[in-house]
């Protein structure tokens, strides 16, 4: 708990620092607008990061195809809506595609490269990403599309900015997911098994943890998270396959903020990244390179994580 509060304080301080530095002299109302706007994008980064971390902890795979899986989900959902399906059915259909794609990779492809080291496994998943991107681009010719949810037209006023329920929904979903997943990791049997796998895979298999079942569950869950993130990206960002596919890179930045481990840190890191990226609009120097924020922050976090360590000695990674 102490640790969570410390991260929260750090994130708030960073955001406030950026707001004061670049936004000095801007009315509080304008600042508020940019902060609220940044929170929505930040929670998208966080959602993607949560999926990546859940999967990485349980299976040791950092999945670069997360964006592509989410993209396939939202394109499928869009297509189902175009075919006249009832909204919720279409969304569930889209999510099902996400779960199916993740399970296919997890059960069919990933086991065959289990002998590779983590970096190679991560890099190879890019192959899956571009294959999915190729199929989707082939099936859906380039034309303007829009994916909407009914919550887009409902709104509340916060800090003078009309905030749609969808934007609130992503922030809320990210928080609920972090709390829910953390609790279930700590209280359920599967959660215990996942944590065991995350700590030491070979020992876990020796003591009889059903690795296959736990991994399948993790892949399915991550597919669901990627799918949901994809739907939200499609709604809040834009419905373009290549854009959503490569959104996985800033999501990795959010995951790094949680050291690929701590879900609350991923959430807070993601939100801070979103807010800072949005606030950089105030700076004439940086506004054209705003999207660099996730990478700079992630690099700083990585450096801070390893401060004081002079050298590495052969470890278990």
């Amino acid at each position: 708990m102490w640790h969570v509060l410390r991260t929260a304080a750090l994130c708030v301080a960073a955001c406030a620092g950026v707001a004061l530095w670049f936004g000095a002299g801007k009315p509080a109302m304008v600042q508020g607008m940019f902060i609220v706007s940044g929170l929505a994008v930040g929670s998208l980064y966080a959602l993607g990061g949560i999926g990546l971390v859940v999967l990485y902890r349980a299976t040791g795979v950092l999945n670069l195809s997360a964006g592509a899986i989410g993209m396939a989900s939202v394109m499928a959902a869009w297509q189902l809506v175009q075919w006249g399906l009832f909204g919720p059915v279409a969304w569930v259909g889209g999510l099902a595609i996400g779960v199916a794609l993740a399970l296919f990779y997890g059960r069919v492809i990933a086991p065959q490269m289990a002998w590779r080291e983590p970096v190679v496994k991560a890099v190879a998943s890019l192959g899956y990403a571009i294959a999915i991107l190729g199929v989707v681009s082939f099936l859906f010719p380039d034309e303007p599309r829009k994916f909407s949810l009914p919550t887009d037209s409902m709104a509340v006023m916060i800090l003078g900015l009309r905030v749609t329920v969808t934007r609130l929904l992503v922030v809320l979903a990210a928080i609920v997911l972090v709390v829910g997943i953390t609790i279930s990791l700590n209280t359920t049997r599967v959660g215990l098994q996942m944590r065991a796998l995350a700590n030491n895979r070979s020992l876990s298999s020796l003591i009889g943890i059903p690795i296959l079942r736990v991994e399948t569950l993790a892949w399915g869950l991550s597919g669901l998270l990627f799918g949901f993130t994809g739907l939200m990206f499609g709604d809040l960002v834009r419905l373009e396959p290549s854009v959503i596919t490569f959104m996985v890179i800033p999501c990795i930045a959010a995951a790094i903020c949680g050291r690929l481990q701590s879900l609350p840190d991923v959430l807070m890191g993601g939100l801070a990244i979103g807010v800072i990226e949005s606030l950089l609009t105030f700076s004439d120097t940086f506004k054209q390179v705003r999207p660099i924020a996730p990478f700079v922050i992630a690099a700083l976090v990585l450096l801070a994580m390893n401060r004081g360590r002079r050298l590495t000695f052969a470890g278990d990674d």
Partner: protein
Amino acid sequence: MRSTSNTIWAVFGLALILLLPAFAGGQWVKIFTSTTTFAMAAAGAGFLYTRLGMVSLVQVGLMGVGGWVTLRLNHAFNFPFEINLMVAGAVTMFLGNLIALPALRMRGLYLALITLMFAAGLDIVFTAKQFPNGADGFWGVGTTFAAEMRRPIFAQSDAAYLRYTMLWLVIGFVLIELHRRMAPGRAWALIRKSEAAALASGVNVTLYKTWAFGLSGLLAGLGGGLLAGSLGLLDAATFRASESVMLFALVIVGGARFWYGAVISAVLFRVVPGLLNNWGVDADLSLVIFGAALLHAVMSAPDGLAGQINGAVRALFSGRKSPENKGAKA
């Protein structure tokens, strides 16, 4: 045995440098030039990976920096091409060193991720600022077409320039090979085995790790500069972060343990898409073929395609006699 195979490779390489530019058409000369420049970057990433087990996912990004510096100098001053190229190499070598500093404290996936963050950052900057094309100002980007890019005096035509690029690639390979045979190579071997042991035996781990990253950056920068010389101008689309990841993936597929693995990686990176395009395969479907082939190679070829070729060649020359303990060439 070793000298025979070295001679064969040298003859083969020489024949390639002489014949390829003479017989390839205009389009293929361009494709082979790109391939050669990317082979330099791949060689850097491959040697870093096999010698030290360190992963650089920023090679293509550093190529972009090398290209940027080359173009910048070309349009700002009247230096000959080589000077511009050398300065570009020096800048990316320095950047490589800089990236190595956090790398000293990180391993495996985390190290790869910090290089990926660098690549993603460079991607954003390239998109926003693009590459100098002869206009005024520091960023030097104008709206009319690009000013002339000066090529080396003896490599004005596309075919001659391909030969010139191939010579640079050979220099790159020789550089790596020299390092491998001398003090840095021994230090790297020790570090790879155990950093503790290296430290205990008086190896300056910091220096040699930084050095390795610098060398890898140098190769990427030279590759980028040569690419700039080939095309005359560059575009951010070439240097996406995903391209850096893709090049590393192909280094694994090509086979990082062997020097010609870098060539195979670059051929997969540039020649294969060119072929698919020439055969009229839909651009989207080539992505699918490419992705599936990548997955398949990672699943099934431990030493990459170069490893398989090496096995076949050795089986041929040694009459299938003890192929396993000869030791890989590289």
